[in-house]
């Protein structure tokens, strides 16, 4: 069976074979990840569609066209392809990896008790076996990465589980069979990627969030007044999002660092306004990018967003749709969120969070009045955006939303 680079998106024509996870001639099981391929934005894992012996024809680091055969799986079993037992001792290393790796009883127990996955650890024992030391080292590494946990390494002989001196088990009954209480599923490649990216955003930026709120009366009044007219003329409803896209562009123009990104030791200011719009899809959140938002009318913005939503529903989103935004808007309000801190989408430096509109008493001209209010949040990379700029940016958005006529007249 041939292994081909799959079509990953409408506008992706080539992909990089980033990493082979299996070796040439290795026995692989069905659905095991074989290799990672990368387009300029997305990394995908290719899984084995059948069990057999892998032969690799395109090496790591090569960029090839979509549809290229990069290897094959010989399903005729394994006998002739796999080395005879002991041909190269220890033969187990070769073929053994197709099965769960052999473990000593103490390693199996400790791994279970500490929730470690020996198959992800490079063993230092004979034939690549994972030893107790390897487990302890992995744990020490994990602790070093999260310094809030204590760092001391437990001695070998310590019991793996805290042993209660009294009948703890009676008050905390051992669940008879865990079956049904938990379900374990491997993460899909997309979910894994999301997890990696979100974690990277947290770890690799100096992310901070500032808040403000906007009185939505003016925008709502505009929408009510021009709703039918707009629909008739443009064939699309007038939503809230277009106002925020417009407002964001205004604010980005006034505060260029928010539209910039860090590249090595440089700050790259981007004089175009490609705004990512977070859309919730079945497999997770995706952020298609509205190109040149500064040159779009409200109707064009609404049409663009609506097209994205359709594409997400139909699973037709191309990777090109997702690439290269300069700023992102996410609307937690559609799910009813009142206040949240959005997370950056690196290398972007800013993300605007919209929220639910709520009638709230506010003081206006010395009087308490009820107004439709929305909290706004801006998460930003503090490395290149100062607090003053972030607060100013969000205030600019507030002003644009509270007095949209000015923004629209100017635009």
């Amino acid at each position, binding site marked *: 069976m041939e292994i081909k680079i799959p079509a990953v998106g409408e506008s992706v024509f080539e992909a990089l074979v980033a990493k082979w996870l299996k070796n040439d001639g290795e026995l692989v099981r069905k659905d095991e990840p074989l290799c990672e391929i990368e387009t300029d934005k997305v990394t995908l894992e290719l899984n084995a569609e059948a069990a057999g012996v892998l032969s690799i024809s395109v090496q790591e680091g090569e960029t090839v066209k979509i549809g290229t055969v990069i290897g094959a799986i010989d399903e005729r079993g394994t006998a002739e392809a796999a080395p005879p037992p002991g041909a190269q001792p220890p033969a*187990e290393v070769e073929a053994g990896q197709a099965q769960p790796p052999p473990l000593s009883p103490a390693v199996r127990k400790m791994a279970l008790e500490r929730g470690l996955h020996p198959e992800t650890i490079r063993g230092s024992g004979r034939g690549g076996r994972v030893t107790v030391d390897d487990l302890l080292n992995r744990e020490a590494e994990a602790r070093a990465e999260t310094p809030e946990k204590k760092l001391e390494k437990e001695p070998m002989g310590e019991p793996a589980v805290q042993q209660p001196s*009294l009948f703890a088990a009676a008050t905390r009954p051992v669940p008879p069979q865990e079956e049904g209480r938990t379900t374990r599923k491997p993460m899909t490649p997309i979910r894994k990627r999301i997890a990696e990216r979100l974690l990277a955003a947290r770890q690799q930026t100096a992310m901070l969030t500032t808040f403000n709120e906007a009185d939505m009366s003016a925008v709502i009044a505009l929408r009510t007044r021009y709703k039918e007219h707009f629909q008739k003329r443009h064939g699309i409803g007038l939503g809230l999002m277009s106002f925020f896209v417009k407002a964001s562009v205004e604010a980005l123009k006034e505060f260029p660092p928010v539209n910039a990104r860090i590249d090595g030791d440089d700050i790259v200011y981007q004089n175009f306004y490609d705004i990512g719009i977070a859309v919730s899809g079945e497999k997770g959140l995706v952020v298609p990018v509205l190109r040149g938002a500064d040159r779009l009318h409200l109707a064009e913005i609404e049409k663009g967003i609506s097209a994205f939503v359709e594409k997400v529903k139909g699973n037709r989103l191309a990777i090109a749709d997702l690439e290269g935004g300069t700023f992102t808007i996410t609307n937690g309000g559609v799910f009813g969120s009142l206040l949240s801190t959005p997370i950056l989408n690196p290398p972007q430096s800013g993300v605007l969070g919209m929220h639910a509109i709520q009638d709230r008493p506010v003081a206006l001209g010395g009087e308490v009045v009820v107004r439709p209010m929305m909290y706004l949040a801006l998460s930003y990379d503090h490395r290149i955006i100062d607090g003053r700029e972030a607060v100013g940016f969000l205030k600019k958005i507030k002003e644009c939303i509270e007095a949209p006529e000015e923004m629209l007249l100017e635009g």
Partner: protein
Amino acid sequence: MPEETFDLIVIGAGPGGYVAAIRAAQLGLKVAVAERSERLGGVCLNEGCIPSKALLDSSELFALARDRFALHGIGIDPPKLDLARMMARKDDVVKKLTDGVAFLFKKNGITRFQGSARLGGKSGDDHRVEVRVGNGEPQILTAKRVLLATGSRAVEVPACPFDGETVVSARDALSFSSVPEHLLVVGGGYIGLELGSVWLRLGSKVTVVEMLPKILPNTDRQVADALMRSLKKQGMSFLLETEVTSLEKRDGKAHVRIKSGDKGEEIVCDRVLFAVGRRPLSADLGLEAAGIAPDGAGRIPVNDDFATAAPGIYAIGDLVHGPMLAHKAMTEGEVFAERLLGQASVVDYEFVPGIIYTWPEAASVGKSEEQLQAENIPYAAGRFNFLANGRARCMDETEGFVKVLAHKETGRVLGVHIIGPRASDMIAEAVTVMTYGGSAQDIAMTFHAHPTLSEAMKEAALDVEKRAIHA
């Protein structure tokens, strides 16, 4: 009498029960053990493994002195058997070991109750256990957890009930007061062959009757065949595909009618040992009232924690699934206690070794060749005969071989079968390697001291790839 409350009550002080009790006490529980017999250790220590091995070792020495010393250049008068003394030594071995268990109980603060125990319902959250001596008032113990470890007993053939004299179980065959002239052993399993060996060496004529066409049906065929050849050479006779149809006791002799196909025959012998299997002792434990239903074979269904259908009640050893072996019950006892306290211990049922203490001994772990063939697992077999092993030559114990069965592609060890001198000790290496998921190459690349019997294991592992040095 006031009720006594514990964290754990163990019913039965055999190898499963006493080990579970000690391990639970080590982990901090307040443990009680109820045992019917005044001696701890169960069948294994009192009337099974230990006394039978004591007699096997004694009778082996006797046979060596009689038959083999001359070959080594040791001239002696024909040795005389003092059976009473041999039995006394056996009893002394048993006593020392059972006293040892009692000492361990004391050391670990385990409370011991003598009497027959059964479940007696619940009081509040706690299970009640009634311990009764004779027909007296039962003593009531309570605990949140109860472990059933009552073991098993020899199956009795209804037509031929045990009488302790002429028709006997394995227990009685360990304490004959005289050497039977002719011992008939019904059942070609390991218990029958071991006890048959004891009396054969001490001078009995021994005939083994087996219903199936072969002895030791679950043992690797090459091993079972080699063992049968060896036992025949020693003078044991075998009647295969033969069953006992009736038994009559006359003039202190047993007249046993046997049938093989259409042919009938009568055998006259002094004693008949029935060793046709063992059955779990699950009948008198009050299981039904607790909501526990043993299967048709009397075994109690349990999950990985050894929990039965009744919350708080657990079972291990011969009462549950798996081979009825002391070391299996002991491991279950440890694992039970550790899991109760939240550890992730498991029993590696695939790697339970099985041993037959005849001479030569037979020992095995993992799958037999027949099993691998039936399961269509590709394998390669390596074999090495003790004939070519230096130490075996020195010992003049050259019978038998080591056989290593490894996966054809990965070399992973799937089964090891040994027949030969000290096979019981040699199998330990194979169990360790297999538990570590090791391969034949792992064995081959590991040092084996010279000259030792263990070199045969290394050579057999090399022979998996047909590169044994001394073959």
